[in-house]
């Protein structure tokens, strides 16, 4: 039978899905063991037990210097920044995206501008950001917003533009004003699509968060990673990387779930195009 027609059964599928994770873990363990055999103090690929110890230290015991659970503090700080930034970016994405996607005047005025702005490398603008917004939370949140919002705006505009024109006509024949069309026709149909775009932006958002925290911060997951890099504490770095990956993955799944729950009509509407 052609490979294209061969399907693993449920059990084999589950094993296959685990396989690459096991391979990566195995490769890590072998590499780690080899390096540790050469230099027991090696910090690059810590053993599983050192990773466990790092987790224990960071997540389950208080830091003697500050009396806090560091991983908790870091996670709170990072998630706060991320949530604030994504909320702002979503608001910008919705307002500008709907305006550009729906209103010809806005499309003419802002379409090209947003396309260009989305190409500006935000990291290079950090100094300006610091000086205008200060070193505090504002500039970190702003970096994420600047990095994420243009993509959201473009995406939302595209998806608003993809709504069947028949719907806009229909709404007008029901007497809707532009504002009512936005409110009752476009916005509710844009929200579930926005979640799709947002899911794609979670990766970049974490990236900007880490970059911002690496530059000036007192807490946060990115801060800690770049701080402990100073003494090559890979045990902490790897623990944090896994934790960030898990958080990002959960956010992704959470948004997917939210989409399904909050917009039950959407899956079917998307399938039928």
């Amino acid at each position, binding site marked *: 039978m052609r490979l294209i027609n061969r399907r693993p059964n449920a059990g084999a599928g589950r094993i296959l899905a685990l396989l690459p994770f096991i391979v990566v873990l195995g490769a890590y363990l072998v590499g780690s063991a080899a390096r540790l055999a050469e230099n027991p103090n090696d910090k690059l690929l810590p053993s599983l037990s050192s990773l466990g110890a790092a987790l224990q230290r960071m997540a389950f015991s208080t830091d003697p210097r500050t009396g806090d659970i560091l991983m908790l503090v870091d996670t709170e700080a990072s998630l706060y920044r991320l949530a604030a930034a994504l909320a702002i970016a979503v608001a910008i994405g919705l307002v500008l995206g709907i305006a550009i996607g729906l209103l010809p005047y806005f499309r003419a005025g802002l379409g090209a501008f947003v396309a260009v702005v989305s190409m500006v490398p935000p990291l290079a603008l950090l100094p300006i950001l610091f000086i205008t917004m200060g070193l505090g939370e504002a500039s970190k949140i702003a970096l994420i917003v600047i990095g994420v919002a243009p993509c959201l705006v473009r995406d939302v505009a595209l998806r608003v533009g993809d709504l*069947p024109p*028949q*719907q806009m*006509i*229909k*709404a*007008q*024949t*029901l*007497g*809707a*004003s532009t*504002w*009512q069309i936005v*409110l*009752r*026709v476009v916005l*509710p*149909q844009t929200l579930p699509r926005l979640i799709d775009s947002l899911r794609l932006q979670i990766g970049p958002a974490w990236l900007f968060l880490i970059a911002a925290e690496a530059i000036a911060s007192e807490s946060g997951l990115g801060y800690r990673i770049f701080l402990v890099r100073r003494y090559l504490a890979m045990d902490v770095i790897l623990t944090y990387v896994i934790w960030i990956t898990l958080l990002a993955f959960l956010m992704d799944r959470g948004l997917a779930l939210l989409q399904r729950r909050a*917009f*039950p*009509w*959407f899956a*079917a*509407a998307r*399938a*039928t195009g």
Partner: protein
Amino acid sequence: MSVISVKDVWKEYDDRVVLEAISLEIEPRAFVALVGPSGCGKTTFLRMLLSEERPDRGTIAIDGAPLPDEPDSGRGVVFQRYSVFPHLTVLGNVVLGLELKAAPLLGRLFGGARRAAETEAREVLAAVGLGGAEAKYPSQLSGGMQQRLALAQALIAKPKVLLLDEPFGALDPGIRAEIHLLMQRLWHERPLTVVMVTHDMSEAFTLATRVIAFERRRNEPSDGGRYGATITRDIEVWPRRIAGQPRPSRTSSLPGRDDPAPLTGANRDDPAIEGATP
């Protein structure tokens, strides 16, 4: 006094004439079917009646006044697809028309006003045979039910003119027969002037009081698009149909003509809503 009067209307796209010298008077409560080969400009004509497009030459007037600049609630429309809002329930789709009219700011009604609107919407839904399906989303409806919903939605705004662009073109023959009956009933019951584009001659003659054919008379490639389609036939359907005076015998016998109706089960329009009473 004629409801719609079209005078010497021309329409070009990119220097290609699509419609040429269309003149037409449509009486009040007429049911006009527009037929013609693919690409001859039927949809374009309907879009002009809707103010979605503007004629390049000529004028269109309704009740003597020139057409408004843009679509409004005086003219309802049902398209072949995308006529209903996928994010609203059946009831929500119909209530919407009332909400938009009554709540300019929020486009939403609450409390008693909403309940009153819902009652009105339920009546219209019952009239199109969608009683019981109020809580479903359009994607849960069959194609025929979606078009019923689109009709209900258009009707609740009480338009004087109803424009239909191949509204039943995507439906199975059996379902089409059922919805034809509905369409006729609605036309008889409500003060509507209807203009319907269709590909299907039998549909045109089943429903309309008047069948108008668009056709491009000169179609040599050497013309380079200098000639558009125009009205080539204008047939009064005989025996004459008069709005408000249904003749059950003729209308109910017609659908059989091209439908495998004897073969279809009771619920075939509606596999998704088993148990509901349409």
